[in-house]
């Protein structure tokens, strides 16, 4: 009964959303409260439908097909709750809930927008229809049978996993809001002021995308057992592309708000970033590209999702080319002005996202034109083509905040010169003394130092003057500096070694010694397996690590749990390979300096959402 109710509410919200679109476009209502109440009703219906599915999960109602394929009575209750978004249908429902929530918040704060919410509802309606007709989570498995349910993929029975998709979806869904604002602006030829909310909404979306992506990266780091934190996997890329475009959108909309320039560019970016996130959704869910994240394949679903994406892009660009005007097109910018810095920022970010997208879909293009041959585009391509672009971008990130709007003379030349000189010199010294010198090490550290110095200078200046300071920007940029530092040091200075050890045997790695101390069998509710105890001795310190291999009987999957000793300076990371004999194991150890800085930086970037954009110290 409850699943049928949930299904009914989902259909109801779909019709409600369609009504809102048609009424808004055909008979625009005079009363502004119309949109608020309609959005509230849609949100509540989806929320209750979400609750209905949760009830089915928590009560182990295996007559619901989606519950039967994604849950198991032995699953701890916390994972039963999170199992709802462990598969395709449920995660779509979560996405819809978040999207409807964002639309409601938007309508509440911006009641003067005539058609924005109608455009947002077009996306919502399309995805609701997709869920109801092609991915319905409430489908029954009848007659009711004695089966005990399958299992949540064991790799996903994990804390980071349970919050990773919701955070990512907050970001993806948030990109619908700028799109709606821009479309309303075009349709009604509004004043440029109407575009202002794009800035804060793109920051919201960006922060959650940052958190979602970094949670995914953290999860991959300790759960997949390979010791990497970024694999250039198609699914990671399809989150990175919207993130890059959203970063560009933030900067472009700042320029639009402050100087009424880049107006058309901001609008185009709202379309592109939404298209990027929908295309990412398509790539992940259609099974067109295989990856660790792939959902069950179904060509019908893929075609429908691609169609949604196509319609939104065509709608967006048609309106754009028919209705956009020449406001803000003519921009005088000297190369020392802030305008020019924003231009560089956008040009590089959009190029980077195009490079990543090309690498991601290139295997598809290649397969078509070569008549079925398959290739993969791997990390070497992505590292080679993205790192130089990223470094140049970061260089301008250090200089940009020190420039002024409309500046035509070299402002702050002394400070900029000092920053560049001192950073390069210091980095040269540090790279020579602490590390064996390499070009990337030197350039990476120099840029990080520049970033930190330029931000410090900005903060000091605002202490000494009445200038306002944007703390949100400081947090975002500082987070990126810390992240860059973590990437530079950990990827250039990691040590790794593979070995086979018997009980009580030792192997030395660098200046430290690893001993296999003990092996034991572990048995839990939903899995069993082997746990091996290693001791890691370094000078007079001894660390214990407990990597595991687990077997999950319900889904008959084997997983590796890495043994990690985390610390801010370095991580010691051991992952088990094959069991060789009675008490012998093959294993791999990795020592990764400063790898935690990557996620620390990402958290600081996320916090940019919660600090004030305008603050005066005096």
């Amino acid at each position, binding site marked *: 009964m409850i699943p049928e109710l949930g299904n009914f509410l989902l259909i109801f919200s779909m019709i409600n959303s369609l009504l809102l679109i048609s009424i808004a476009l055909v008979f625009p209502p005079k009363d502004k409260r119309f949109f608020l109440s309609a959005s509230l009703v849609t949100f509540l219906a989806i929320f209750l439908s979400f609750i209905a599915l949760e009830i089915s999960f928590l009560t182990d109602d295996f007559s619901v097909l989606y519950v039967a394929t994604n849950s198991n009575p032995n699953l701890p209750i916390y994972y039963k709750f999170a199992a709802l978004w462990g598969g395709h249908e449920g995660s779509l429902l979560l996405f819809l809930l978040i999207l409807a929530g964002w639309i409601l918040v938007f309508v509440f704060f911006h009641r003067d927008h005539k058609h924005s919410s109608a455009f947002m509802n077009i996306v919502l309606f399309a995805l609701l229809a997709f869920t109801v007709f092609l991915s319905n989570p409430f489908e029954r498995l009848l007659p009711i049978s004695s089966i005990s349910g399958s299992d949540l993929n064991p790799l996903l029975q994990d804390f980071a996993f349970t919050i990773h998709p919701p955070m990512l979806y907050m970001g993806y869904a948030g990109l619908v809001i700028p799109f709606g604002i821009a479309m309303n602006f075009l349709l009604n030829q509004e004043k440029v002021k109407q575009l202002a909310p794009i800035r804060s909404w793109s920051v919201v979306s960006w922060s959650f995308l940052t958190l979602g992506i970094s949670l995914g990266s953290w999860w991959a780091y300790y759960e997949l057992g390979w010791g990497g934190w970024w694999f250039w996997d198609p699914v990671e890329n399809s989150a990175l592309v919207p993130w890059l475009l959203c970063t560009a959108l933030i900067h472009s909309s700042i320029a639009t708000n402050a100087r009424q320039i880049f107006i058309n560019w901001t609008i185009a970016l709202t379309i592109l970033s939404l298209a990027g996130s929908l295309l990412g959704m398509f790539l992940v869910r259609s099974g067109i590209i295989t990856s660790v994240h792939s959902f069950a394949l179904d060509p019908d679903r893929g075609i429908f999702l*691609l169609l949604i994406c196509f319609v939104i892009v065509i709608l967006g660009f048609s309106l754009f080319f028919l209705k956009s005007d020449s406001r803000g097109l003519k921009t005088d910018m000297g190369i020392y002005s802030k305008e020019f810095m924003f231009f560089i920022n956008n040009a590089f970010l959009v190029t980077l996202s195009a490079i990543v997208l090309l690498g991601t879909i290139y295997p598809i293009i290649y397969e078509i034109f070569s008549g079925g041959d398959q290739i993969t585009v791997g990390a070497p391509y992505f590292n080679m083509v993205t790192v130089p672009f990223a470094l140049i971008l970061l260089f301008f990130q250090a200089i940009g905040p020190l420039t002024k709007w409309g500046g035509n003379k070299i402002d702050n030349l002394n400070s900029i010169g000092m920053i560049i000189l001192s950073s390069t010199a210091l980095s040269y010294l540090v790279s020579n003394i602490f590390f064996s010198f390499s070009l990337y090490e030197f350039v990476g550290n120099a840029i990080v130092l520049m970033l930190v110095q330029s931000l410090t200078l900005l903060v000091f200046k605002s202490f000494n003057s009445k200038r306002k300071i944007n703390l949100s920007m400081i947090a975002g940029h500082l987070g990126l500096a810390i992240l860059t530092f973590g990437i530079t040091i950990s990827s250039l200075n990691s040590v790794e070694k593979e070995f086979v050890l018997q009980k009580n045997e030792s192997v030395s790695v660098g200046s430290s010694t690893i001993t296999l101390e003990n092996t034991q069998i572990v048995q839990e509710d939903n899995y069993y397996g082997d746990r091996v105890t290693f001791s890691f001795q370094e000078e007079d310190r001894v660390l214990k690590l407990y990597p595991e291999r687990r077997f999950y009987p319900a889904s008959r999957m084997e997983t590796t749990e890495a043994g990690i000793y985390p610390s801010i300076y370095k991580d010691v990371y051991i992952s088990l390979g094959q069991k060789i004999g009675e008490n012998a194991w093959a294993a791999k150890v990795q020592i990764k300096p400063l790898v935690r800085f990557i996620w620390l930086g990402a958290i600081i970037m996320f916090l940019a959402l919660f600090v004030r954009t305008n603050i005066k110290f005096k």
Partner: protein
Amino acid sequence: MKIYPLLTILFVISLFGLLFFQLFLNSGIEEFDQKKLAPFESNLLNGDSFTSKELKNNSLSLLNVWATWCVGCRLEHSYLMELEKKGITIIGINYKDDKEKAFKWLDQFGDPYSENLFDEKGEVGFLLGVSGAPETFLIKNGDSVVMHHMGVLDEQVWNNKFAPLIDK
């Protein structure tokens, strides 16, 4: 100035065109290289024994790997019943399962299998290269595997992957 809209639309259409094209390409018939069937012996659910030589009695037979813990098996069960009615011989391999539960399942949902192997430890599955359940093999003349399908067997899969091989 008018060239930009045109270029954009052209780019969008060609990008999406490629993706659509690839989707249709993917849904076509998959090729499968014929393999020799590994000989095996096993007990049946009813306690008798069975060897793969007995498959030679039929020119065509399906080997269907199933278990009561497997949701996909529940999904394809009704289609297996249909196939059995059409006169296709289906040999079941009850994989890593419990005998009592298996009998209960067959009582409740019907029994499409002419024989049912009891592969408690997955030994037969190992010889056949089974990685999970449900999986279905199409065996010709009792000694060659002409199709190995992993996942649920339904009408669409049957028409795309199995039927063309049977008509030959």
